[in-house]
C-alpha cells in the first residue's frame, strides 16, 4: 500500500486499486454539463464537500414549500418532478441518471417550488449552497462562468417545461379573449 516516492494520484487518493469517494465524485462532476468546464482544483473541492444520499422508491427527496439548501445530481435511478397548485398535482418532468436538479439553490435562497419523488431506488450526490459559496469565493475568476452555466441549464429546462405545458393547453386560453385584461393573465 505504499506509493513510489513522489507519486501523487491525480485524483488525490492513495495509489491502490481502490478509489476513494473523492475521486469518484470528481469523475461524476466532470461529466456533468454544469461543472465540466471548471478547473480541477475547484472541482476537487466540490467533490470533497459533496455528499452521497440514497432514497427508496416513493421517498420524497424535495418537498414543495420547504427551504431549499442543496442541489442534486442523480447517480442511479429515476425521479419524478411535480408541482402542487390549487390542491392539484401537476407532473412536470421525469429525470434520470446524470440529471442535475435544484441547481438554483447554489445561487440564491428560496423555498422549493416543486417536489421531487423517487420512482425507484435512487442514489444522489448533493452539494449544498454553503459549501458551494465557500468554495466559489476562493475562486472569484470562475464564479461568473459557473453562474452562467447554472442559469443556462435552468433556462433550457424551463423551455422544455413550457413547451410541454403549451402543447397541452386549450387553444382558446392560448389565444386570449379580447375582454381579458393583461393583469389576470400574468397575475
Amino acid at each position, binding site marked *: *500500500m*505504499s*506509493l513510489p*516516492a*513522489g507519486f*501523487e494520484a491525480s485524483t*488525490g*487518493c*492513495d495509489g*491502490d486499486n*481502490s*478509489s*476513494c*469517494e*473523492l475521486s469518484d*465524485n470528481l469523475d461524476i462532476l466532470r461529466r456533468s454539463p454544469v461543472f465540466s468546464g471548471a478547473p480541477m482544483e475547484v472541482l*476537487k*473541492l466540490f*467533490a*470533497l*464537500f459533496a*455528499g452521497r*444520499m*440514497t*432514497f*427508496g422508491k416513493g421517498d420524497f427527496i424535495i418537498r414543495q414549500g420547504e427551504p431549499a439548501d442543496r442541489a442534486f445530481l442523480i447517480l442511479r435511478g429515476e425521479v419524478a418532478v411535480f408541482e402542487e397548485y390549487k390542491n392539484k398535482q401537476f407532473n412536470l418532468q421525469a429525470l434520470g441518471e446524470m440529471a442535475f436538479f435544484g441547481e438554483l439553490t447554489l445561487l440564491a435562497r428560496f423555498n422549493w417550488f416543486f417536489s421531487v419523488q423517487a420512482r425507484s431506488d435512487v442514489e444522489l450526490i*448533493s452539494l*449544498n449552497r*454553503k*459549501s458551494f459559496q*465557500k468554495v466559489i469565493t*476562493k475562486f472569484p475568476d470562475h464564479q461568473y462562468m459557473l453562474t452562467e452555466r447554472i442559469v443556462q441549464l435552468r433556462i433550457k429546462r424551463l423551455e422544455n417545461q413550457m413547451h410541454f405545458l403549451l402543447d397541452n393547453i386549450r387553444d382558446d386560453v392560448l389565444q386570449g379573449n379580447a375582454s381579458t385584461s393583461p393583469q389576470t393573465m400574468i397575475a
Partner: protein
Amino acid sequence: MQITKRPLFYWILTRYRLLQAFLLLVIIVGIFFKVFPLEMQKRVINTAIRLKDQEALFLYCGLYIGAVLIASLMKFSINVMQRYLGQKILVEIRRELYNHILQLPLQFFRTTQPGTVINAMTAELNAVGAFIGGALTVPITSVLTFLAFAVYMVFLDLKLGLISLGIYPIEIFLIPILQKRYNKLNKTRVRVLRSMSNVVNEAVSGIHEVHGNASYRLEEEKIGGFFNRIFRIMSKLFVYKFGIKFINSLVQSIGPFILFLYGGYLAINGQFTLGALVAFLSAYEKVYDPWKELIEYYQEYQDAKVRYAQVMDSFDIKPGPALLPEGRRPYTFSGDIDTQGLNYVISGGVKLLDNISLQIKAHEHVALVGFSGSGKSTLALIIGQIYAYTDGHALIDGHELKDLYKADISGSIGFVAQHPFIFTGTIRENLQYSCKSDFLNKDRKESMLPCETTMLEMVDNVGFSEDVIRFGLNFVIPPERCKPLVPVFLKMRQAIGPEKADELTNVIESYDINRFLRHTTICNNIIFGEFNSDAFRLQNLPTNKIFLDFLKSEDLYDPMITLGKNLTIQTVTLLKDFVDDPFFLLAGPITTDQFTVYADLADRLKTDRDTFDQTDAEKLLALALRYIPARHKMVAIPTDLEEKILQTRYRFMEEIGKVSLAECAVTAQSVVDGDDIPMISSDNNEFIPYCPTQYRFQNTLLDNIVYGNIKTTLAGDTSNIVDIVSKLLREENLLEEIMEIGLDFHVGSKGDRLSGGQKQKLALARVLLKDPKILIMDEATAGLDNASQSRVQEMIRTKHRGKTTVIAVIHRLDIAPDFDKIIVLRAGRIVETGSYPELMAKKGVFYELTSGI
C-alpha cells in the same frame, strides 16, 4: 403606618421586646460584677497586704478573679445576644421593605435603576442591622455603668471625683460638631455608591454593546470618576471618625494626669490611702469604657440613622393596590369590561388616552388596532391594572378597576406582554409562575398545583411541544434522575429497532458490533466503547504503551502508519490554501492548530516516505485514529483493512476491555428481536462497550435512544433525526416522558437560551395555565413564525370561544377577521368600532390601515 414612614426606633421599640428586656437584665447584673473587682482591689492592698494577712489575700484575689471571669462571660453573651437581636429585626425590616418595593407602581421603576434598589436592600441595611441590636441596651447600660463608677469614685473622694468627672462635658460639646460633618459626608457617600452601582448595573446589562463597541476604556472612564470620588469621601470620613476617637482618648489621658498630680499630693500628705488611690485609678480607667461605648454608640446611631433614612426615603411612594382585600374574599369575574371617559395623562400633560369609552361583553374577542403611538398597548396595560388610569371609569363586572385588589385581578386577568420576561430557571418553573402565584395568593391547601396536570396539554396548544421534545432529547440527564428511567429508554431504543431502522438508515448508522462503521473514527471502530480514564482518550492513544503493544501484536501498527501517511499527504495537498477558514478543514482530519505541523510532515514525506522518527510516528497514528471514512473523502480505506480492524475490535474488547463478546452479541440480538435486554457485566469497570444494554450517562437522551452515529453531511443538521425519532416515540406513547424531561431544561439567565419565538410561546402558555377569564395579549404573537401564529390564533378562536374574554393588541391585520369586534385607536382616541365586515364596508380608517399594509 407605611413602612417608609417608620422611624428607626419604631423597630427597636416594637419588636422582640421580651428579648430586649432579658438582655437589659443581664447587662445590669453584669455591671455589678464589673464594679465588684474594684472593691476587691482596694481591699487586697489596704487590708491583705498591709496587714500581711495571707488568707485574706487569697480570699480577695479569688473573689476578684471570680468576678472578672463572670463579667467577661456575661460580656460575651451580651455581645452575641445583641447581634442576634439585631439580625432578627433586620430580617423583618428587609422582608417588609421588599414587599413594599414590589408593590410600588410601574412609574417608580421607570425612574429608579435596579442598582439603587439592590444596594438599598443589601449593603445599606447591613449597618442598620449591626446598630439595632444594641440600640436600647447599650446606651442604658453604658449610662448606668458610667454612673456606677462615677458614684464609686465620688464615694472614695468627693473633690477628686468631681474634678475627674469634670472633663467629660468638654467632649459633649466638641464631638457633635465633628459628627455633623461626618453625617453629611456619609449621606454623600451613600449617594455616590448608588450611582456607582447603577453604572456597573448598566454596563453589565448592556455588555453586548460594550463588547460590540470595545468600549472598555470608555466604561473605565465612567466608573473611574466614581472610584475617585468614593476614595476622597472615605478618606475624609476616616479623618472625622478617628478625629472623634482621638479627642476622646486625649481628654481621657488628662484625667490620670490630674489624678496623679492632685491625688498623689493628697497621698503624700496622708489625706489619701494608697489603696484608695489605686482603686481610684482603676475606677477612672473603668469609667473610660462605658464612656467610649457611649461615644461609639452615638456615632453608630448617627450612621445608622442616616442610612436608614436614605433607604426609606428612596421608596417613600404610595404603593399600588394591595394584595388581599379586607373583609371579603377576592372576586371572580365573568369578564365584562366597561370604560367611560377613561383618560391617561402622563407628566407634562400629555394625554396618552383621551376619553376612551368602550363596552366589551364577557367572552367577546376584541382586537385593538391602530398606528404606532395610538395608545393601544397603553389601554391594554391599563385594563390589566398594570398602569393606573388618571380619571374616568374602568369597570370589570361593574367594579371600579381602581378599587380592585391584586388578588381580584390575578385570578381572573391574564396579561401576555410583547417582550415577556423569562426568569432564570427551568421551563417548568417558568410555566408555573402565574399559576403558582395565584395558588399562593388564594391560600389553597391542596398539595399539588392545579396546573401540573394540564401543563403538557397547554404546551401542545401553543405549539411549544416540538421545542420541548427537542430539549428533552438533547438533555444529558444526570444519573440520579436517569437510573430509574433507564429501562424505559432502552425500551425506546428497541422501539426504533429493526422495523423502524429502515426509515433511519439514511440518517443513522447504528453501533453494530459486527460491522465496520464508516461514520465514526477508526479509534471508535477498534475500541468500540468508552473509557473512564484519560489514558485511552484518542489524543493519548499514540503514547499509550498498552494500546501500542496491542496494535503491533495484531499487525495493525504498520497499516495504520501508512494510512496516516496517505491522510497527511492528501489532506495537506488539498487544503493547504484554505487553512484560514475552519469550514474547509472540517472535510479533513487535521485541525486548524495542527495544520502547520502536518504540513511540515507532509513536505518531508513527499521527498522520502520512509524516513520519520518517533514523534512523527505518533502524529501519523493519531491522524489515522481520527480518520472517519465517510467524511474524510480524500483517502479510501481498503476493504481488507476494514476486515482486519473488525477482527482487532473483537480481540481488543476481550483482551483489554474484558467484555464477553458472546454476551454483547446476545444483547444486540435481543434488541433486534424485541426481547428483554440482559445487562452486561464488564470485568474492567473502566470500560463501557457500545453494547445496547448500556446507557451512556455522558451522552444526551437522543444519542442513547438512537445508539449510533448520525450521518451528517458536512453542513447538515440533526433536526431531521429529531422529527423521525419523535414520530416513532409518539407511536410508542413515550413522548410524554420525553416532554417531562424537556420541561426541566434550564433556560439560562433571563431565558437567553431560548429564541424570541420560544419565549413568547412560553409566556403565552404560562398565562393560559392559570385559566384566566380575561386574556389580554399585547402583540403576543408578533415574534412567532407564520405557522405558529396561525396555530395560536386557531387555538384561541376555538378553545376560548364562549369561555374567555380576549383583548388582543394586534399589528398584523390579516388575523383581524377572527375577532368579534375591532376597536381602532388613533392618537389616544377611539375612531372606529365594529366587526371586520362592517369596518371594511365602511372604508374608513380601518380600511386604510389594511390597504396600507
